[in-house]
């Protein structure tokens, strides 16, 4: 037995010494690639935000007692006329010219049929909102339901004054006139009466104001005339004036946030800011280092507004879109009642996925086209109202799969 055991030991030791090579690894042929691609998911941002968090009440934003929201703009010194500004058509004959602040303004035409009229031209002016570029990129329909303009004036003239105001909104080659019927101002009765303060409201009942506002205009022109009828022979020595010698007036534009939108889309083309310009090779955010980037958005939307976004990588040389991400149902609008007021929230979950194909096309394109689309509840079939206590609760999380090169 001892002999056998020694044999066994001998075999074992031989085995140990010689060994048995199972595999040969030639490390000279080791691939140098060393990457890891963990998929990391993390909450990014969150918010529970009301309208009043976004927009504070102030001079231009008014929160009503019922929490309705109205935008208010004031334009001072729209009217500033003295008697000297009035011209007797009888004495001067044809009134053919007024101050031309803008060569595009229409020439104010005056009714010279009455020989006993004094007419003053309201100095034409214009407001350039400087949003032409923005408006050029906007398509779809938009309608403000109940805008109004209030003319607050102070009238010293004893005789009736009729105002003919006109506003013309212009957006690209499309114009909309206010179409306001001339209206009379209240006036003092007695010679010693002070100037009378009055107001006149322009709204959808007497004008095309909703159409004008909903254009929406990039530039707004306004002009007009004030006409004073003389009873019999004119006495131009000042007896038609009471108190303040000037007819002054200002405008207050009120835009209650009651509107409708249907595929109201803003599109813009930008230079591809994500493209690697080759300047920084160590750029940690090189888009090609990502295999996947997904943005998950969940929202409980209490606004009657839905939103969608789309981003396309565009090659302006070949005029082709190489890749696109589309979040059509990013946020769905909340339901509303017959008055346009929100009755609940709509919960939406959306994923916006940027694939490796998308990332690989970043450096092959020179432009990025963004589309941002808004729709009100019912796709603009009815007006909705905005209240200051509307809220949106949302969470956005990121799922990132970076390709981390360990070499």
């Amino acid at each position, binding site marked *: 037995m001892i002999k056998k055991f020694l044999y066994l030991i001998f075999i074992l030791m031989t085995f140990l010494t010689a060994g048995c*090579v199972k595999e040969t690894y030639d490390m*000279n042929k*080791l691939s140098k690639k060393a990457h890891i691609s963990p998929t990391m998911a993390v909450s990014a941002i969150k918010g529970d935000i009301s309208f009043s968090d976004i927009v504070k009440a102030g001079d231009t934003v008014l929160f009503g007692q019922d929490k309705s929201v109205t935008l208010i703009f004031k334009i001072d010194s729209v009217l500033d006329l003295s008697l000297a500004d009035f011209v007797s058509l009888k004495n001067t004959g044809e009134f053919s010219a007024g101050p031309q602040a803008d060569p595009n303004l229409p020439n104010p035409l005056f009714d010279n049929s009455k020989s006993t009229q004094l007419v003053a031209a309201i100095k034409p002016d214009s407001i350039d909102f400087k949003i032409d570029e923005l408006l050029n990129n906007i398509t779809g329909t938009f309608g403000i339901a109940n805008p109004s303009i209030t003319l607050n004036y102070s009238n010293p003239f004893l005789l009736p004054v009729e105002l003919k105001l006109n506003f013309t909104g212009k957006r690209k080659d499309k114009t909309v006139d206010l179409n306001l019927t001339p209206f009379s101002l209240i006036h003092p009765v007695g010679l010693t009466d002070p100037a009378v303060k009055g107001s006149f409201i322009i709204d959808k009942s007497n004008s095309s104001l909703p159409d004008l506002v909903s254009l929406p205009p990039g530039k707004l022109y306004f002009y007009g005339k004030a006409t004073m009828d003389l009873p019999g022979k004119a006495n131009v020595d000042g007896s038609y004036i009471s108190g303040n010698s000037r007819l002054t007036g200002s405008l207050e534009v009120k835009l209650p946030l009651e509107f409708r939108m249907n595929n109201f889309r803003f599109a813009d083309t930008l230079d591809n800011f994500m493209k690697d310009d080759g300047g920084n090779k160590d750029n940690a955010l090189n888009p090609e280092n990502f295999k996947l980037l997904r943005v998950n958005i969940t929202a409980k939307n209490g606004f009657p507004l839905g939103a969608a976004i789309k981003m396309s990588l565009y090659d302006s040389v070949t005029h082709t879109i190489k890749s696109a991400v589309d979040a059509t149902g990013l946020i769905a609008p909340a339901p509303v009642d017959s008055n346009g007021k929100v009755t609940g929230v709509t919960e939406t979950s959306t994923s916006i996925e940027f694939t490796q194909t998308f990332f690989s096309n970043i450096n092959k394109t020179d432009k990025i086209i963004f589309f941002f689309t808004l729709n009100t509840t019912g796709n603009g079939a009815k007006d909705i109202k905005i209240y200051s206590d509307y809220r949106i609760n949302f969470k956005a999380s990121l799922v990132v799969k970076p390709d981390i090169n360990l070499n």
Partner: protein
Amino acid sequence: MPGKYKYLLISILSLILADVSAQNTQVLYFMNLPQNHLLNPALRPSNSVYIGLPVLSGFNINVNNNFVNFSDVFLKGQPSDSIISVLNPKYNIDDFLAKIKNKNSLEPEVTVPLFGLGFSVGKTGYVFFDVNERIDGNIVIPKDLFKLAFKGNEGFVGSKIDLSSLRGDLKYYREFGLGYSKDFTNKLRFGVKGKLLFGVAAASIDNKALGITVNNDYSHTFNADITANFSAPLKVTKNADKSVESIVFDDSRLDNGSGIANFISGKKNIGLGLDLGATYDFSEKLIVSASITDLGFIKWKKDVTNLKSKGKFEFSGLNILDVVNGTKTIDEVGQDMIDSLKNSFKVTDSNTAFTTFLPFGLSLAGSYNLTKSFSVGVLSYSRFIGKQIRESLTLSANMNLGNAFSASISYTAENHKYDNLGAGLAFRPGIFQFYIVSDRLPVTWNKIKSDNSAVLIPANWNTFNLRLGMNLAFGNRIKKKNDKPMVLVE
């Protein structure tokens, strides 16, 4: 089959099939070597005196890991004879992760004997004294940490990244052992060994809780209650709020000889240890034995640094309300979040002494002498490391030819591996006794070529165990019997 034997068989099978892993040199147990008293102080060598000298006495290295081999990390033939690593995108990382255990341990152990002495006292007594430098480590890495690194956290959505099993424990200490064994009856022999331990340096992680819950909305809840204890020359820099800013090794303490001597003396970190063992001869052929080794602890008092972090932090995204209403910028909101995270897990330090316990072992063995010099044995060795238990079961065939030659071959089921063949060999020309012992002989090897050189490494490296060295041995207690035959006188 009688009931008790059935249960015994089931127990043995359970041991084999369970999470089998231990750390010892099981082959040594049945060999006639002075070193076997390290496994059971009741065991004694046949020589009357042995001396172990620094360096010459050899060393003992154990490295256990229970998760990867070379072939798991490097994959051949993708394509032909090219090689890809686990980090290569072509490597199916799921295959790699499938090989990873829930708790992946790495347990290095190095023992370098500085001095050893053993001698017979009286007819059956034996005294042994030894001094050993020991480094003992235990690192457990939870599988979730690998999954997190390679796959990210998306796979944990709706569950928890459980890092509570993350553990690290590394001790460097010096062991002075004095033992004595003696026959108490003809059949029963007891042995005891007391140890005085001097800790040189230690790092120990006390992990009460560590995890990250990943909720369905990708919000995260971080939870930690973890303390890292160090006994080492460290320099801690603190912030104004007394939180820890940085921690670095203070190498200025080791600039000169006295500093080094002071560091390695370990005089202030004192511990005690105990080995107990017994053997019982049922007959001349059947011997059973049992032992408990390395029961002990070290109280670390010198250069102690305790870094503690306890807290809970929930992150569900940056709240942009403040950004929307204009009170803060997004950068400020981000910074607030980082500050909040830092405050939640503020690392504080203290200098409270701490205690580490040695992983202790329990051996149960039986041997059967088929002839005078040839025996077979079975050894169960359990190693208790904190709450973890490692098991191994060894079957061996042993031959001891007096003091001149001792050999053993073994099969060990250990560390999820059931192909561990071990062997030990000792021979004694004159007073020199050479030995080499390993529980795991690499049956297959991998040849690793690089540039113009090549090395062989075991194909399976889950367990690496090697003990080799040389003793100076004198005398031999095994003597020829000179009994005279009994004569019946009528």
